């Protein structure tokens, strides 16, 4: 494989948790030794439930949070070592789109100014040229440039997310970190924004780190998928392999839990028991063992943390009993129509 555009190695992020005046503060390990790489032009999806650490990974990449250990290399540049001007120049190459553009856009700033602002801050365009580039960005994300005069609350959810994307594109990034970009949108609008993201990727040759909890959305977008649970990657592989034959029991359960709009789909559902455990006190051994539906689950799972290992070429899983022919049945999906 050619050199990846983005490589993350052994990323760790801990947050102190105050447990009151008489007890020592504990550490919440939000990200626990995550390694990932994304090739140029590729979409890597990072999937997990709330508290899995997927957003913290993104925040560390963007230098919105400082990791405690690990390396982030972007096109040969050690991102975590960047300071000052170096960091500022680097930020042009990697931009982030947030879940709720209502929360990330200034409610008192016209959306045209919100898209224009990064052009001026980074010294890319001023005056009439900045106006022109802003209008072009609006057109590129499928918005009439007339909307530049609007305030965020005057736009629909889908339009606001288009503004969020235009703002991220303003500085000409190579990689976009998309943090749940469509999960706040209605289904009919979701499909529009996903189509726009695909179109932009093709036209601009963008690389995406696509963070999501909805596996049905991920299936449409990703080349590769990494699944996180309690701060760790538990499975990673090519999308078509992962959706056809997931290796980790947690991935089976995630796939099986997605509601299918077909009352006739008699699926053998794996309904996990309990909630994800607290990342302040993760269970010993395999962090998934208390909820694991795998038939082979035994003492080893309760005591020995499984390492991430290649079960088949370029498809890794952190499970002692992961095989290409799983001994527990993976969720049976209805036949393709």
């Amino acid at each position, binding site marked *: 494989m050619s050199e990846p555009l983005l490589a993350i190695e052994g990323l760790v992020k801990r947050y102190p948790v105050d447990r009151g005046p008489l007890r020592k503060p504990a550490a919440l390990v939000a990200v626990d030794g995550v390694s990932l790489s994304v090739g140029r032009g590729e979409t890597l999806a990072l999937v997990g439930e709330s508290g899995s650490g997927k957003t913290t990974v993104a925040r560390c990449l963007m230098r919105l949070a400082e990791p405690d250990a690990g390396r982030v290399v972007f096109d040969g540049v050690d991102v975590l070592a960047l300071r000052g001007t170096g960091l500022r120049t680097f930020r042009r190459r990697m931009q982030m789109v947030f879940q709720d553009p209502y929360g990330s856009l200034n409610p008192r700033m016209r959306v045209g100014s919100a898209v224009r602002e990064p052009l001026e801050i980074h010294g890319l365009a001023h005056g009439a040229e900045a106006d022109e580039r802003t209008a072009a960005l609006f057109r590129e994300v499928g918005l009439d440039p007339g909307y530049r005069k609007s305030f965020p609350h005057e736009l629909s959810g889908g339009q606001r997310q288009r503004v969020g994307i235009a703002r991220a594109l303003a500085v000409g990034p190579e990689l976009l970190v998309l943090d749940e970009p469509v999960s706040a949108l209605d289904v009919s609008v*979701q499909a529009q924004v996903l189509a726009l993201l695909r179109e932009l990727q093709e036209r601009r040759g963008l690389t995406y780190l696509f963070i999501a909890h909805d596996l049905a959305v991920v299936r449409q977008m990703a080349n590769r998928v990494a699944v996180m649970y309690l701060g760790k990657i538990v499975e990673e592989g090519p999308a078509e392999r992962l959706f056809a034959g997931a290796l980790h029991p947690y991935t089976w359960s*995630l*796939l099986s839990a997605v509601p*299918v709009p077909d*009352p006739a*789909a008699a699926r053998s559902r794996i309904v996990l028991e309990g909630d994800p455990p607290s990342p302040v006190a993760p269970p010993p051994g395999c962090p998934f063992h208390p909820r694991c539906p795998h038939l082979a689950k035994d003492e080893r799972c309760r005591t020995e943390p499984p390492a991430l290992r290649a079960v088949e070429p370029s498809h890794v899983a952190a499970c002692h009993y992961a095989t290409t022919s799983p001994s527990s049945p993976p969720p049976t999906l209805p036949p393709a129509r």
Partner: protein
Amino acid sequence: MTPLLEVRDLTITFPVRDGVALAADGVSLAIDGGETLAVVGESGCGKTVTALSLLRLLPESARVAPQSRIVFEGADILTLDPEALRRVRGARMAMVFQEPMTSLNPVLSIGTQLAETVEAHEPVRRRAALDRAAEMLAMVGLPDPRRVLRQYPHELSGGMRQRAMIAMALICGPRLLIADEPTTALDVTVQAQILELLASLRQRLGMSLLLITHNLGVAAGIADRVAVMYGGRIVETASCKDLFAAPAHPYTAGLLQAAPRLDGPARPTPAIPGAVPPATAWPAGCRFHPRCSRAWDRCGREEPPLLDAGPARASRCWLVTDPSGGRG
């Protein structure tokens, strides 16, 4: 058979700065005893306003048009005096909301909140009410219910809080449970648990369930019948089986096609063009026609009524009477 709940011509408006928002317009629906009806639609379609009106929980600014009727167990909810309404709320008809953290009282223990619900409707002592509460918490699958009684909402996870909310809603044995997006704020694995729980409780307790959701997959897994809303209107109703097998209304069909899914081939899903117009300015004619790929000139002029589209199903679309789509 008289339905448990019958809503007729429910019309709700809100005065807003730039006019009047028509949030629900002539909504009629019925739920039989033991039945699960899912009301499906996107934001702004009027599904939540409809649900809130059933227990008269609408904000003060809402205006319910005089012809509206909400008949539950033979009485019109809209004309009940406060005492009669209090006896219905929580006892005969109860509601579960999307975000349990905002509907539970943060400074009262779970036990106190459940016990107070019982005491509001029945002459019981606290001890007996707490026993009932513990039983209910066990029934909704919370381990160690006696301990949960002493806990506060913030000590529970999102899934546990939603279970506690469901226990509180069901503790007086209501005949109808209204669940407004009960799983939307939850992770997908927990969502699956809560849906299974609702389905099994409905069967065990023989109650009816009105589920409000934007997710067609959620409706498919639990409902007997489905009503699809768009623009304050019911645009299609059918049995769950019929609706998913062959949607009659182009909006239902568009929603089904737009939903990303795990069964079937991995391909981009087609979007519905445009966006939902504001409730202050629904388009003339069929409210969906500006976004509809099958619309013809009649659709922009004349709004179709809910037309019979087969046994026990209806669609608010001219295609029912003119399948050629204006070319015939």
